[in-house]
Every structure is written in structure tokens, then in C-alpha cells.
């Protein structure tokens, strides 16, 4: 990197004008790197079989997902190849022009060359023992079925063209470029999730559905694609500015009005959520329910990890305690069959869900104390390892023969009673949505209420510096225990709902993976940020479900998205207020304060005229 930082040319030709502080421009290295990357990317998706697998998956009209994937690489990396490096203050920005397009073209051509080499090697030597997915069909697909050499030449041209297009994107001003990118993503999403989108639009009573989608392949029609593109292009052009303005206007309101507006906004969101499951239909509601259970766990863990900074890797234990307590207390013992069923659980008081709930809370609190007490003096990595152990111990206890008369061992507890609310049995995904949503609202409220209280400040202080928190009078032992207890109770709600929803519990549902997924949700959402955690719980649990169609590639895509996300926004989807330390915000606050102070002074001066004036 050292050489690219140099801004002043070393040699100045005699008689030339003194060197201006020209900013760095695109370098050949940048072009080569991005070109090779694009070529490797396309080769990779071909080699793992994605190209062939998506051959018949039409997104827009006759355009299938594989070709979208194949041209996305040169397009994106061509853009990067032609993008001038960031301009430092005081330097003149390099002029944009044909060279940016040329850089993209070169990168694309290079990608094509790499791809040619790939096709050449894999087409002439049989490597299918190792790369089982590199079939002649896949290679034919990527060479347009025109023969290895001619076809890959054609592909080279295509790659170069899209590279150039990517490079040319640099000439477009930022706002329309961003809007166009988002609109293109939406078009692909509309095509990719067409069955779901069609169902939602149908439920909404959207009249032009048959013009928008092809009936057989389910792909967007050309008209549909253009409509979606234009709609989202315009929306994202308009939305960005007005969202910021709305935020500023909201903050400028006086306290009382802010309360009213905030309350109305919350009511609007609640209203929207009330009709949501009916718009979404069964399948999407079911996905949302699944996300809701994870959301409950994530909100609980957010208190433990996000607020109090206690890294708990065995969080699934509390989820399991909630699920098993509910299961044991509410399962429906068949008449006269007790003891003869597999698993032969001997005990079951057959309570209703609501009668069992206080016991669930008690059991979770107890579990919180049991896990919390021995780890009170541990910090950081040690805490993580010990809690990891606790998570496994819990699962093994539920699995053990020792507790088999109560928990059923590997066969678990089955026939868990349904929930009744005001005489209505909760069975349909829509009803479950409302139920889970109710608990979610409670958990969100608890998160906010506790965050802005004495105990919440104690947690944050412990996260920031434990020994100073203690020296400043915070009872660290009590505060940590409370974090574990509250976290455990919220997770146990998730477990209780999970048990009732599935109707049975098995020890294998409570593996370490659950702990890890929940932790990922909290981190990706933004530690200590409730909105971030909500968003990431929905996105991270729903994405693999929505991508189900992509079969074995969905986790590949999921993983790539996760990595990309953490590279782009390491502080999470929606960083918490504390973590958002943008200069701009601070300046705004300062300005507002100064204005208020000046106004105050002027008022005072008006009230009592300055002597002598």
C-alpha cells in the first residue's frame, strides 16, 4: 500500500508547471487484481455447480439466474477496477472519463482470459474425480454451447462488455448509481422469490399480477421487470433524503409533541403488524414465527452480551429449560397408557400453558442463577468457555437416563398441549404470529425499560470497565446475576413457545448451533441495539428459509452475505446510539444547544434592558 499513498510525483520535468497536489488515480494493479478476481469468481461458481443448477431458474423473461451470476462478477469488479481511490482533503479529484471505462473493460477482458484458462484446463482434462460438479454440461453452459474455444472467446467478449459497463458506472453520479443498484437488486429479488411475491401481491389484491409474471416459469415479464426497476429506482432516490429530513424534523419537535408523534408511529407499526400475517399467507407467517422465536432469544442474549458484556456461549440452555419446563408441565397424558409409551415419562401435571408460565419463569430464573453464580468472577474468554460447557451439560442432562422418567431421554416429551387464549386455541400460523408477537413486544419493552434504568446503567458500566464499576459503587455480583436471570427468562419464553408450537421437544433441538446462531444475530444486528437485533433476527433466520429453493447453495450464499455484511458494517445493521459517534451528529447537537442558549440570552435581554441602551 505504501506506494499508492504517494501523492506528489517524484520527478518533475524541467520547465513544467509546479506539481499540483493531484490525487491518486486508478492504478494498473487495481485493474489486474479486480479482473483476476472476477475471473476466479465466475470460475468458482461454475466449478461448484451453481451455474448448471440455476440454468432453468428464470428471473426475468428468458434470463436465467446462472447468467445473472456470471455477468454480476465482471460488472461489480469492473466497477471497482474503474473506481478512483478516495480523494483526500486538499487534493484535486482525478477527472473521470474514458480511462475508467477502459479500466473496467480491461478487468472484464482479464476475467474472460482467466475463465478461458479455466475452460481450457477443465475442458481438456478430466477432473471430475475431484471437482464433481465440473461437468461437460456446465462448461457448455458457460461457453454458450458453442464449443470450448469459440464459446469462451464469446464469453470473453461478454465479460469485457460487462466489465466496461461496470467501469462506466463510475461516471454516473452517486445517487442515481446507488438507486439503480438497489433497484436492480429488487428486480432480482422479485424474480428469485416470485412464488412468495406473487402470493403476497395476490393477497393484497394487486390487479396486474398476470402482466408482471409469466405463468409457467414464474419469471418476471419484461414489463414487470421494468416496472419494478422504475418503482424502486424512484423510491430510493426520494426515500434517502426524506428519511434524514424526517429524522431531523422529529428531533426538532418539542418534547410533548415528540411523544405524540412517537406514539402514533408505534401505533402505526402495531397496526401494520396486525394485518401482516394475513397479507403474507401461511408460509411466510410460519417463517416469521420461526424468526420470532429466535428474536426472543436474541433479545435476551442482547441483555447478557450486548448490555452487560458477558459473553455467554451456552445460551441455548435457558431456551431448553423454558421448552422442557413447558413440555413436562403441560403434556397431555393419554388415559390408561401412562408408562407404556416409548420414553415412559411417569409424571405430568397436565397444566395449561398459562398455569405453567409462572413455573417456567421460576425455572429459568433458577437456571440463570445456577449458571451465573460460578462464573461471577470470570471475565471474557474464560466466561465464554465455561458457559459453553453449561450449554452442553444442560442438553446432556435432558438426554440422560437419570432424568428419563421426567424428560423422556432421547425420545423427548411429546403431545404438548396447545395454548388457549380467551377460549381460542392457537394453531394456525397467523394466530401464532400474534402470540409470539405479543411476547416479542414484552421483551422489547423490557429491553428498553431496563436499559434506561439503574440496573441498565450498571450493566453498561460493567461492560465498559468492571473494576471501575465496582469502585464506583455498582454491586457487580448482583448486577451480573440479574443479567443472567433476565436473559434466561426472556429465552425461556422463546423455549416455551417453541415447545407448544412444535408439539414436542427433543434434546437434539438444543445443540450448540442454536447458541451460535443467536449470538450471530446479536452481533450482526449491532450489540446493545434493539432495532438492530430485531432486523437481524428476521433477516438471518428468514434468509436460509427463503433461499430453500437454492438447495445446497443456500448456506454458501448465506455465508458470503454474512462475511460481506461484517466487512461493510462491522458495528452491526443498526449500531446502538452509543456506538454511533458520527461527527455530524455531535455537531448538530452542539449547534442546537448553542441556538437554544442564544435564544435564552436574547429572551433575558428583552426582559431586562441592558443599562445604557
Amino acid at each position, binding site marked *: 500500500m505504501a506506494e499508492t499513498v504517494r501523492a506528489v510525483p517524484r520527478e518533475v520535468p524541467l520547465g513544467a508547471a509546479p506539481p499540483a497536489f493531484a490525487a491518486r488515480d486508478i492504478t494498473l494493479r487495481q485493474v489486474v487484481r479486480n479482473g483476476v478476481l472476477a475471473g476466479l469468481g465466475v470460475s468458482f461458481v461454475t466449478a461448484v455447480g451453481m451455474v448448471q443448477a440455476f440454468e432453468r431458474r428464470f428471473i426475468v423473461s428468458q434470463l436465467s439466474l446462472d447468467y445473472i451470476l456470471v455477468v454480476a462478477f465482471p460488472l461489480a469488479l469492473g466497477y471497482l477496477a474503474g473506481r478512483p481511490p478516495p480523494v483526500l482533503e486538499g487534493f484535486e479529484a482525478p477527472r473521470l472519463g474514458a480511462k475508467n471505462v477502459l479500466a473496467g473493460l480491461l478487468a472484464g477482458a482479464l476475467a474472460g482470459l482467466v475463465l478461458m484458462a479455466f475452460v481450457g484446463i477443465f475442458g481438456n482434462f478430466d477432473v471430475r474425480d475431484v471437482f464433481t460438479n465440473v461437468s461437460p454440461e456446465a462448461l457448455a453452459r458457460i461457453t454458450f454451447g458453442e464449443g470450448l474455444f469459440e464459446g469462451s472467446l464469446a464469453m470473453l467478449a461478454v465479460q469485457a462488455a460487462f466489465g466496461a459497463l461496470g467501469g462506466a458506472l463510475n461516471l454516473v453520479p452517486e445517487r442515481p448509481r446507488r438507486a439503480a443498484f438497489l433497484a436492480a437488486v429488487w428486480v432480482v429479488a422479485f424474480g428469485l422469490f416470485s412464488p412468495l411475491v406473487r402470493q403476497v401481491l395476490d393477497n393484497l389484491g394487486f390487479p396486474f399480477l398476470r402482466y408482471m409474471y409469466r405463468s409457467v416459469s414464474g419469471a418476471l415479464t419484461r414489463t414487470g421487470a421494468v416496472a419494478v426497476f422504475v418503482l424502486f429506482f424512484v423510491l430510493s432516490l426520494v426515500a434517502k433524503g426524506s428519511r434524514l429530513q424526517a429524522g431531523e424534523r422529529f428531533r426538532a419537535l418539542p418534547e410533548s409533541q415528540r411523544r405524540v408523534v412517537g406514539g402514533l408511529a408505534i401505533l402505526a407499526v402495531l397496526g401494520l403488524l396486525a394485518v401482516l400475517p394475513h397479507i403474507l399467507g401461511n408460509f411466510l407467517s410460519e417463517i416469521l414465527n420461526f424468526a420470532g422465536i429466535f428474536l426472543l432469544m436474541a433479545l435476551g442474549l442482547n441483555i447478557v452480551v450486548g448490555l452487560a458484556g458477558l459473553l455467554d456461549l451456552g445460551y441455548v440452555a435457558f431456551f431448553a429449560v423454558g421448552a422442557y419446563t413447558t413440555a413436562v408441565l403441560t403434556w397431555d397424558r393419554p388415559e390408561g397408557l401412562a408408562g407404556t409409551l416409548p420414553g415412559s415419562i411417569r409424571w405430568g401435571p397436565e397444566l395449561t400453558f398459562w398455569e405453567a408460565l409462572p413455573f417456567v419463569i421460576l425455572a429459568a430464573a433458577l437456571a440463570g442463577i445456577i449458571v451465573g453464580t460460578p462464573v461471577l468472577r470470570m471475565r471474557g474468554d474464560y466466561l465464554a468457555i465455561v458457559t459453553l460447557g453449561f450449554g452442553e451439560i444442560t442438553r446432556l442432562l435432558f438426554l440422560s437416563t437419570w432424568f428419563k422418567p421426567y424428560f423422556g431421554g432421547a425420545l423427548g416429551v411429546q403431545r404438548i398441549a396447545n395454548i388457549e387464549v380467551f377460549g381460542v386455541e392457537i394453531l394456525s400460523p397467523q394466530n401464532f404470529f400474534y402470540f409470539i408477537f405479543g411476547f416479542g413486544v414484552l421483551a422489547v419493552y423490557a429491553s428498553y425499560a431496563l436499559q434506561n434504568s439503574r440496573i441498565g*446503567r450498571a450493566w453498561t458500566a460493567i461492560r465498559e470497565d468492571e473494576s471501575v464499576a465496582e469502585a464506583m459503587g455498582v*454491586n457487580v455480583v448482583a448486577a451480573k446475576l440479574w443479567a443472567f436471570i433476565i436473559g434466561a427468562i426472556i429465552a425461556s419464553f422463546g423455549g416455551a413457545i417453541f415447545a407448544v408450537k412444535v408439539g414436542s421437544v427433543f434434546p437434539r433441538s438444543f445443540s450448540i448451533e442454536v447458541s451460535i446462531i443467536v449470538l450471530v444475530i446479536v452481533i450482526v444486528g449491532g450489540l446493545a441495539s434493539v432495532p438492530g437485533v430485531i432486523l437481524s433476527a428476521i433477516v438471518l433466520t428468514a434468509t436460509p428459509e427463503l433461499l430453500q429453493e437454492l438447495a445446497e447453495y443456500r448456506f454458501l450464499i448465506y455465508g458470503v452475505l454474512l462475511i460481506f455484511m461484517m466487512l461493510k458494517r462491522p458495528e452491526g445493521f443498526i449500531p446502538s446510539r452509543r456506538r454511533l459517534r458520527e461527527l455530524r451528529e455531535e455537531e448538530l447537537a452542539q449547534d442546537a444547544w448553542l441556538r437554544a442558549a442564544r435564544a435564552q440570552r436574547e429572551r433575558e435581554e428583552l426582559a431586562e434592558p441592558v443599562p445604557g441602551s
Partner: protein
Amino acid sequence: MALLEVVGLTKDFGGVRAIDHLDMHVDVGEIVSVIGPNGAGKTTLFNLITGMIPPDEGDIRFEGRSIVGLRPSQILSLGIARTFQNVRLFPEMTVRENVMVARHARTRAGVVSALLRTPRFRREEAETRRRAEEALAFFGPRLVGYRFDQTAVSLSYANRRRLEIARAMASDPKLLLLDEPTAGMNPRETQELTELIGKMRDEKGLTILFIEHDMRVVKGVAERVIVLDYGRKIAEGTYDEVAHNEQVIEAYLGRRATA
């Protein structure tokens, strides 16, 4: 009357004796300074008094009662608050919240009342907030207004020191331990803080024990000076007395070459 009494206090770190049979006391309403060369055991003394590390021998009495073995948070609620040599704030918390944390020991609201937002909780919360802002206002306009909601990490170095002192003051201490309060401040800021230390005692009725390297501050405000070297008290008295003490000069400047 002695507010704080230290009797035969000893602390070893491995083979190094950081505090060596130290006897000292601080009377109610006094301003006492602890000075000494680097490694003399000054900060260790503070850590021992506030319970952050346990002593090996000896006793520490506060208002006549032994506080050895108490947790730091218990010692704070008895009325000893401190600041740190290398400012230790809660960086991601706002200025106001930093100070509000120090009210923890003086407030009672628990988890349930926070969830139910009971009237008592609201009252206590408002009171905590008011007390925090009051403590910050002690430093004039520097830490008030829009600064309330800034994160501690965005403050300047001198303001961080002030914030730390405000945090300690907000806990309603009887005895305030300041560990090098003027380190890293420019002469004007140092002068200002020297005056504030006097004001803390005169207006807030605090007893103050502070570690300081800047002799102008010690001379300006300390009524009594205790000099430590290798964990032992080598001199005690007014600034002028200790400044002319042979042993003190030796400790600071080294042994005079014997002719």
C-alpha cells in the same frame, strides 16, 4: 477527629514491598497530599484504601470502623470515592450516564420497579439525573448542556479528568481520593483545578486526599503533605517543612555524593 486511619499497612507484590508498615491519618475537613517519587507506592495506597486490592498486614479504619475486607462498592457506599491516575471512564456511555452510575450505591430501584415504571422509580430516576447534572455543573460550563449527551470518549483529556472527579463527587463521599488530578493539564487548567480542590472542601464539605506530582498544586492547596518512598512514610508536615527535609530531597534527587 481522624476520618481515615491507616495502621501498620503492608502490601507485597511478589518480592517487592509496595507499602511498608505505613501509618497515616486524614482528619475531617483536611486537604492532604501524598507525594513521592515514581514507584513509591502512592497508587497502591489508594487501591488498598478503596478495597481494590487486599492488604497483607495492618488495618484501615474509616470513621473508626475497619474497612479491610469490604468490597470496593461497599467502601464507596461508606463514603470513600476515588479517581484514577490513568483516567478510567465508561467510554461508550454519555457524560451524564457516567456520573449517574456513581449514584448506584445511593439509590435502591430494582429490576421490577424499572419494568413497572413505578412512581418511586420515576422519582428516583429524576433525582439521580438531577444530582448527576449538579455534579457536572461544579466545573462550570465545560460539562453541561449538549455535553451531557456526548459519549465520554469524545471529551478532551482535561474534560475527562473533570468528568472523573464529577463522577466521584456524585456518589456523596465524605472522603475523596484524587490520583494525580492535574496530570496532562496545561498550567491554566492546573491552576483552575487547584482552586476547585479548595472549593470542594469549603463548599461541599469534602475531605480530600490527593496524589500529585505538580508541586505548585501541592503548595497551593495541601494543608499537610505526606511523603512516601519505597512504601514508607519518610516525612510529613506542611509543604515548606517537607520541601526542606533532607530525606525528601534525597529521595527525589538521589543521595548527595559523599566527598
